[in-house]
């Protein structure tokens, strides 16, 4: 068996489930619909096949996820990814961090912010706007949340509107959800050549 990855990386790992994925050959109509399986699209990841065990939640979660991360307007795509990274670092979800750190790097064409976060986690020193966004996402991701008025004030001071702050709340909160599936129901392992989780 491939080794479990324990350190942060921007190389997307393979995800090895701890519970049984559904068998596509035995999938119900509702499961096929939620999985968006069509004759031309039969490749479904183990992660999504595991989630298909709870098809009613999966069917609503996928469009919600896409709306929060990719909806037009509001906070930039990259800064929503930074919110996702903040949550994923608090919860130490290696898989989610890899996916969203690599997207952040692609969108910003930088690597320094991610490198600093990988090295120092919550204590990473970042430029003011990134720092306010990352710090808010980290504090909101604690249990109970440690985000306070002063953290929202700090976001306003670096220029975020209330609508943009809402987008940040949504992306950080969404990864409170995603981390609790990805990090608990499986392990990130060395990627097999030519396959992806």
């Amino acid at each position, binding site marked *: 068996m491939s080794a479990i990855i324990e350190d942060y990386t921007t190389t997307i790992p393979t995800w090895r489930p701890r519970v049984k994925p559904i068998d596509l050959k035995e999938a119900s109509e509702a499961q096929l619909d939620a999985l968006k399986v069509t004759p031309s699209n039969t490749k479904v990841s183990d992660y999504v096949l595991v989630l298909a065990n709870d098809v*009613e*939640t999966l069917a609503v979660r996928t469009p919600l996820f896409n*709306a929060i991360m990719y909806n037009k307007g509001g906070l930039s795509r990259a800064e929503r990814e930074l919110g996702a990274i903040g949550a994923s670092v608090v919860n130490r979800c290696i898989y989610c961090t890899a996916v969203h750190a690599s997207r952040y790097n692609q969108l910003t064409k930088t690597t320094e912010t991610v490198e600093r976060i990988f090295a120092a986690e919550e204590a990473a020193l970042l430029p003011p706007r990134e720092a306010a966004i990352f710090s808010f996402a980290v504090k909101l991701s604690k*249990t109970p949340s440690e985000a306070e008025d002063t953290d929202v*004030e700090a976001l306003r001071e670096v220029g975020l509107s209330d609508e943009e702050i*809402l987008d940040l709340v949504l992306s950080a*909160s969404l990864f409170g959800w995603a981390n*609790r599936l990805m*990090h*608990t129901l499986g392990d990130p392992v060395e990627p097999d050549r030519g396959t992806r989780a």
Partner: protein
Amino acid sequence: MTRSVVAAASGLTEAAFAALTSARQDVMDKTEAAHWAALRPADPGGLSHGERAALAVRVCRRHKSATLTTHYQRLLDEADGEAADPSLTDPAAIPADPRLAALAHYADKAGAAPRTVVADDIEALKRAGIEDADIVRLSELVAFLAYQIRLVDGLSLIGERS
């Protein structure tokens, strides 16, 4: 029209909530749909509506989310004794029944400290007789609550000075 669970729990006035979320109405609608899918699915599998509501009370109490605790207590009351063991709702107690104890233990750990969850926590659920599909249902419930609780916290923070 009835307010959404998140709108009511946020403490914002209807006008303030509508102004803040007007560009994200689709997200708010989908969040409401996710709430009912996680709490009252048409096919609850091995995790009854009452047990789901009881676990939600437990998780929300641990997160000190007063308004959502009240909401889930109401859902539990409506489920009418399906989850009769009151220790399931109390984050300081573990139910005597081994299956309920396993559910409570997992909800505590994944809810409050997901970074500490390891493979053996999933094995413990299996040893308690909980099937794989129900482990996914339990994880989705706890994970959805983590999202909803923080969304409500965030909305109230933004709204306080608006």
